[in-house]
């Protein structure tokens, strides 16, 4: 069996969740690595979109910024923010793939402040394009390490909408129908959402971990899927592409 670190496991699991031919709005950091790995392995026709305007590049190296020139390398169009967000708002973008500082059981994300907004313990970047993508794209995927400081009972600030307060809350607020959180990929598990309660549940657990490990590293009670499966370990091929082509400088996998 090949050796791999937790970040590599997380990116491989994330990449596998992007199917060939899908359209995906990709956030900065680890989501870029996962999208590129998917494109280089099972999903060569994955249509990657970046908020700054890049559409469907064939990524030569992992972008450092979602607006750098790698995002338009051999692309089909170099557009702008309105084109990307309006294509999403129109219903043509299947997934968005985001990172996040804090997440709660309904998949609400915080990247604005830790503590009180007016006098924060820590000021963070804010929404960027995350709120927009998560409002408009059909399904929201999040990639973040399993950590009780990240998986919290109550986020300090809802920057980006998950299911808000539960079933029906997105629609009631006015967000587009039938959209919302889909998967959360961590270094220990793949989590999804219960159809009835819209609460986060464990669906698949990575090699070397058990449900209790995931629960211990989560600040709220997790639900269980009817059947919890084992996540297949990264293949030698996936790891080679990830290390040699996607992130040879180890920007993400070296963290």
């Amino acid at each position, binding site marked *: 069996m090949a050796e791999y670190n937790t970040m590599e496991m997380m990116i491989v699991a994330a990449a596998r969740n992007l199917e060939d031919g899908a359209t995906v709005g990709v956030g*900065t*950091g680890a989501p*870029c690595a996962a999208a590129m790995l998917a494109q280089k392995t099972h999903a060569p026709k994955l249509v990657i979109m*970046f*908020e*700054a*305007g*890049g559409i469907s590049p064939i990524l*030569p*190296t992992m972008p*450092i*910024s*979602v*607006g*750098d*020139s790698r*995002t*338009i390398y051999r692309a089909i169009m*170099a*557009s*702008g*923010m*309105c084109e990307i*967000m309006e294509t999403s*708002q129109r219903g043509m973008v299947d997934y968005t793939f985001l990172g996040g500082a804090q997440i709660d059981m309904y998949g*609400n994300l915080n990247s*604005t402040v830790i503590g009180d*907004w007016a*006098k*924060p313990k*820590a*000021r*963070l*970047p*804010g*929404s*960027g*394009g*995350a*709120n*927009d993508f998560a*409002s*408009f794209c059909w399904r929201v995927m999040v990639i973040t390490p399993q950590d009780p400081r990240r998986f919290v009972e109550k986020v300090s*600030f*809802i*920057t*980006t*909408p998950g299911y*808000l307060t539960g079933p029906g*809350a*997105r629609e*009631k*607020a*006015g*967000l*587009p129908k039938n959209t919302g959180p889909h998967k959360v990929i961590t270094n220990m598990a793949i989590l999804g959402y219960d159809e009835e309660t819209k609460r986060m549940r464990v669906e698949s657990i990575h090699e070397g971990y058990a449900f209790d490990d995931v629960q211990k590293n989560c600040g709220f009670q997790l639900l269980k899927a009817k059947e919890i499966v084992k996540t297949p370990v990264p293949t030698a091929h996936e790891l080679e592409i990830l290390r040699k082509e996607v992130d040879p400088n180890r*920007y*993400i996998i070296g963290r």
Partner: protein
Amino acid sequence: MFDVVAQGEGPLFMDPDADKAREFFRHKNRALVSKVMTVKEAVEKFVHDGEYLAIGGFGANRIPTAVCHEILRQKKKNMIFAGHTSTHDFQILAAGEVFNRCDIAYIIGLEARGLSPNARRYMESGKVKSCEWTNYSMALRLKAAAMGVSFLPGRNVMGTDTFKYSAIKVAKCPFTGQNYSLFPALWPDVSAIHVHEADIYGNCRVKGISIADFELARASKHLIITCERLVHNEEIRRDPTATVIPYYCVDAVCEVPFGSYPGNMAYEYFSDEDHLKLWLKVEEDAGKFKEFLDKYIYGTKDFNEYLELCGGIQRINQLRAQEHLIELNKKES
């Protein structure tokens, strides 16, 4: 009329009245005259204390770095800043404490590179009054302004704290009854955008992504253009399809080769990741950061001097190779 069902508590820094904006644009000069000047002159003439400032590009991609530096050298203060897709530009302006009010969509961070310690300290200091938005919200505000209307609707933001701390209103659509978030138009007093080519009148060409710059150019009351290259007006007229910003939006044209450095310029040069790392590192210590700013910004007379300090043409050549995925010094194995 629109039935407003919710509204954010955040401050609206700028008046979204379309008729007032029209009065301004009615008197904006449309004569075909040369607007070529130095960055120093442009900032003296068009950037004023207390006014609303926006910067084009995407943080460390196609940014008018020279204008940001000059704003620090001229010690502009009490401005309102559009913290929209901002990263290195924000880092520079926060270092100069240029603004005391900020519309926030994305600030402090430099994406995968990490957070700016100094910008974070500044935003946590209580010196800056702020309002929350998102990147598309800000793009829509500029688009409304560019269209000459006082707001535009969208389907984002509703139900979140980002909405609660914004100046967005939610209203019912008069046709369908569906909730929409309404974004007030934003006409910045002054903006700066870096482009690939411009003529002396300000007709501009951009290659690659536009981000929200075409909206920003049309929304801005005053616009400073920095360009990689000046081209003759005959070249613009030879291929009018390539013009993305027409001259009548523009107030100043400054030729600044490599002007997005240390940021990326599509098809020209890649970002200088070593120099950006140095900024982040040196910011950890306030004393060292002051020395750094004195050396690289306050102690330089213009952008050329800064470039020389950073390695000059030799460094640019390496970044050009990186941009074009050319491996210099590659040994055959």
